[in-house]
């Protein structure tokens, strides 16, 4: 079972991850692919249970619109951990679209990437099978200094020091 971290705590995953072919159940928590979300936005709102959107790595922030704010969770997929597009997608979701809800990294992520993922705006991590969440929690903050701004630190270090 893949383990889940949400807001720096180990959590239980209540979501089912649906593919385009899957019928959307009327109840229960689901995460649906972006195309499904875009095609059925209104009916998805009416269902019982939480609904999230699943972004593949080539689906960028510019492919999204205002309806994203209705999502209970946005899951950004990392098909391979070296594919870093999701870092920018997350940054833009948080800072350009001003998305405030849960932002979940899914797919092939490394425990050693959690720090950066968290910095750009992810607050939830579905770890690949075999990667212990307890270890992940230990690795959330390996570096205590942040020079540059990102989602977690809107003000770069130099400005913080200037106004201190």
């Amino acid at each position, binding site marked *: 079972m893949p383990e889940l971290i949400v807001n720096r705590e180990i959590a239980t995953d209540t979501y089912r991850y649906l593919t385009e072919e899957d019928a959307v159940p009327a109840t229960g928590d689901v995460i649906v692919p972006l195309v499904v979300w875009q095609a059925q936005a209104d009916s998805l709102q009416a269902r019982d249970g939480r609904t999230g959107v699943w972004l593949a790595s080539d689906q*960028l922030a510019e492919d999204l619109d205002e309806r994203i704010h209705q999502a209970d969770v946005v899951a950004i997929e990392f098909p391979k*951990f*070296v*594919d*870093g*597009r999701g*870092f*920018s*997608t997350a*940054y833009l979701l948080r800072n*350009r679209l001003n998305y405030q809800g849960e932002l979940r990294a899914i797919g092939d992520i*490394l425990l*050693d*990437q959690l*720090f*950066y*993922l968290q*910095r*750009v705006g992810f607050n939830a991590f579905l770890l690949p099978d075999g990667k212990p969440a307890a270890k992940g929690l230990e690795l959330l903050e*390996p*570096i*205590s*200094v*942040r*020079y*540059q*701004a*990102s989602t977690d630190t*809107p*003000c*770069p*270090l*130099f*400005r913080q*020091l*200037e106004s201190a």
Partner: protein
Amino acid sequence: MYVYNDYDQQLVDDRVEQFREQTRRYLAGDLEEAEFLPLRLQNGLYIQRHAPMLRIAIPYGMLASNQLRKLADIADEYDRGYGHFSTRQNIQLNWPELERVPDILAELAKVEMHAIQTSGNCIRNTSTDQFAGVLADEVVDPRPYCELIRQWSTFHPEFAFLPRKFKIAVNSAASTDRAATRVHDIGVQIIRNDAGELGYRVYAGGGLGRTPVIGEVVSEFVEEKHLLTYIEAIVRVYNQHGRRDNKFKARIKILVRAMGIEKFRAKVEAEWAHLKDNDSTLTGAEIERMKAHFSEPNYEDLPATDPAVEQLKADSKGFRNWLERNATEHRVPGYTAITLSLKKTGVAPGDITSKQMRAAADLADRYSVGEARVSHFQNLILADVRVSDLPALWEEAKANGFATPNIGTLTDIICCPGGDFCSLANAKSIPIAEQIQRQFDDLDYVYDLGNLELNISGCMNACGHHHVGNIGILGVDKKGAEFYQISLGGDSGLDASLGKILGPSFNAEEVPSVIEKIIDVYVKERTEEEEFIDTVRRVGIKPFKEQVYA
């Protein structure tokens, strides 16, 4: 020289512990090879033909004498007593043991050094002119801007898994470009606009490797305070749109080409419109803080010339030669910048022993405000030498193997490690450099040829910048045998150009005589005062081809 504050120190200390823990997990089998790979690469650790290779960052080439001494100690304790300066102003150790790399990093952290982002698909060390701060025709000292970029890019959370590596170079000189900015992913040319305001012309999409490209202008003028946000906009566009399906097509140069510079520029400008004037915009105080780290040494009021030096120049041809090639004019009278050559025949270009590192540190302390710089051309520079000290420095440089008077000439070869060390190589490169140096051992003749950049790479990854050598040599594999392809007309300067391939390749023994023939054609064709590159540009490669393949 930039001096760490508590935050800078904390950051490198944290990094040492982080890497120690990652290495421990890897050795314990908790991290797979493929997972450890990007982690170690982002710490400059390659696994090479014989052993790991550790690339240590030397931000924009600046080294304090105590750092040089530490590098010497590390080379002795953890390696085989030498290091290799790279074309991007870093230093590489060829034989460290993986298990001990965390200890090396801990040693480095003690002298404000690290190996962060010296490899991997992230933003690498920012490079610049090795004579930064002492050149007369410099718009401003580029180093404060390099340091701003260094800090911004260090552990940038969004840009550590780019499609491919990302290199930034900054140039501030008006008439030269020793940092090869036009062949970088981003090239920053510091300029003043017509109103006299400081800013940058920003290039993107340059790069060498198997598809060499000269960068194109993304913006003619970006205001001084917008340096970081403008770069951020470019890197964000690249991170989202750069190709990830084929690593040979993943550099930003391919993206810029595929989109076309107009469309690429439009995307960057659209992204930047959101960032402009946000909190990452530089403040006057921050720029001043950085500048204070690179404030002028206390230059004395000295006469421009020294009678003893003039006398020695008159008496000693060796001294004259050395000054002619290894001294660079300093903007302050009575001072000069001296290049310590690491291009002695028989030594791999850019290699330096631990003994030499200590000697260079001493020379830096005694003759040049305790600092040395590494150049893109793989030499060491003492930038603030008193003219009156030149005779003494010359003697000591000779005694330590630094005085080869060949800077900027045919024998000041840029050369990658090649087949002797590198597992990607098609052919050896270091022995080719040596053969050429031996062929051209007549200094007077080499001087007469003037400025001439000869660059050698052992394969099309182009670590030795062969595309932008006036003469470029590329190792190729012909049915399992090592061959060399020769190109002419490359230039890494302001007027950057890529060399044109002369024709079919040669085996190793043929290379020196081919170079000889090329030089003969130049000598025959050149007009007075014409440099090699200008002759090639004027007459084209045809006469060279005819002579070489006659």
